[in-house]
């Protein structure tokens, strides 16, 4: 439900445009665009987790997926609360769109897999995905965020996603 609502919101934003200057690189994004990317990135991981819960029968994968849903939901709730306090709307942008396209492709691909092949693919992708997002957050987002409260939220978010990266690393090793 959450994902559908989010996708609908993205669609509406794309139709009406958002009036923001076109950004070309992640470092050019403004705070509201960065917030949008983070929200999309959170929801993508929640989407992968729901796929894992539906396909996998490995208890460790289920536990990991439930943790992804629980933690990313907690971050999103804080992000939405902060944005509403700041009376700000996240802005759609090229990076959010790229992430969504990548996720669509991967969900299609992973949906074809079953059993150990799925578990391995899911775990490896979780590791790669958290690594990529953490790099983006640490190197491109946190140094460029202007609002102090938004920056603080990203710093706590980064701690969580770094823990997920370690957790994913552990899972990849276990599945080998």
């Amino acid at each position: 439900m959450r994902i559908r609502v989010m996708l609908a919101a993205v669609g509406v934003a794309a139709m009406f445009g958002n009036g923001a200057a076109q950004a070309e690189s992640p470092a050019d994004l403004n705070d509201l665009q960065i917030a949008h990317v983070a929200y999309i990135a959170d929801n993508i991981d929640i989407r992968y987790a729901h796929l894992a819960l539906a396909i996998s029968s490995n208890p460790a994968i289920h536990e990991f997926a439930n943790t992804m849903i629980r933690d990313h939901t907690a971050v999103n709730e804080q992000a939405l609360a902060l944005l509403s306090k700041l009376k700000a709307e996240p802005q759609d942008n090229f990076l959010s769109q790229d992430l969504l396209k990548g996720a669509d492709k991967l969900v299609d691909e992973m949906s074809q897999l079953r059993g150990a092949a799925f578990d391995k693919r899911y775990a490896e992708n979780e590791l790669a995905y958290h690594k990529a997002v953490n790099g983006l957050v640490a190197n491109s987002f946190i140094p460029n965020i202007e609002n102090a409260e938004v920056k603080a939220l990203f710093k706590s978010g980064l701690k969580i996603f770094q823990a997920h990266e370690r957790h994913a690393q552990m899972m990849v090793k276990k599945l080998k």
Partner: protein
Amino acid sequence: MKSTIQFPFEWFVIAAAVAVAISGGILFYPTPSSGQRQSVEHVVGITDFEFAPATLRVRIGDTVKWINRDLAPHTATAKDESWDTDRLDQGEALSVAVTRGMTTDYYCRFHPMMVAKLQITTVD
């Protein structure tokens, strides 16, 4: 200036009395002369995916209170799941009593790489 030098001992007594009053029963307790010891409530903070302190010295009859200061929910769960705080959201806390023979190694069920332990001591 001279007048302030006349009272240091009294100040010390007052400060010491206040310190004992504040800390007694929270983190420290005065060494009991009667041999009966008050139970202590210890606090383990959960911050940035770590239990602090990672090893906590406790005694039978004490309680341990876990406080989650992270945005992410956590648990403190015995390694064999014989006791469990269950889900603690940000700002939530739960106390567990220290009992004889209890499992002392614990972890977070949500983030299994988070591990810590209690160390039950019997010496004063």
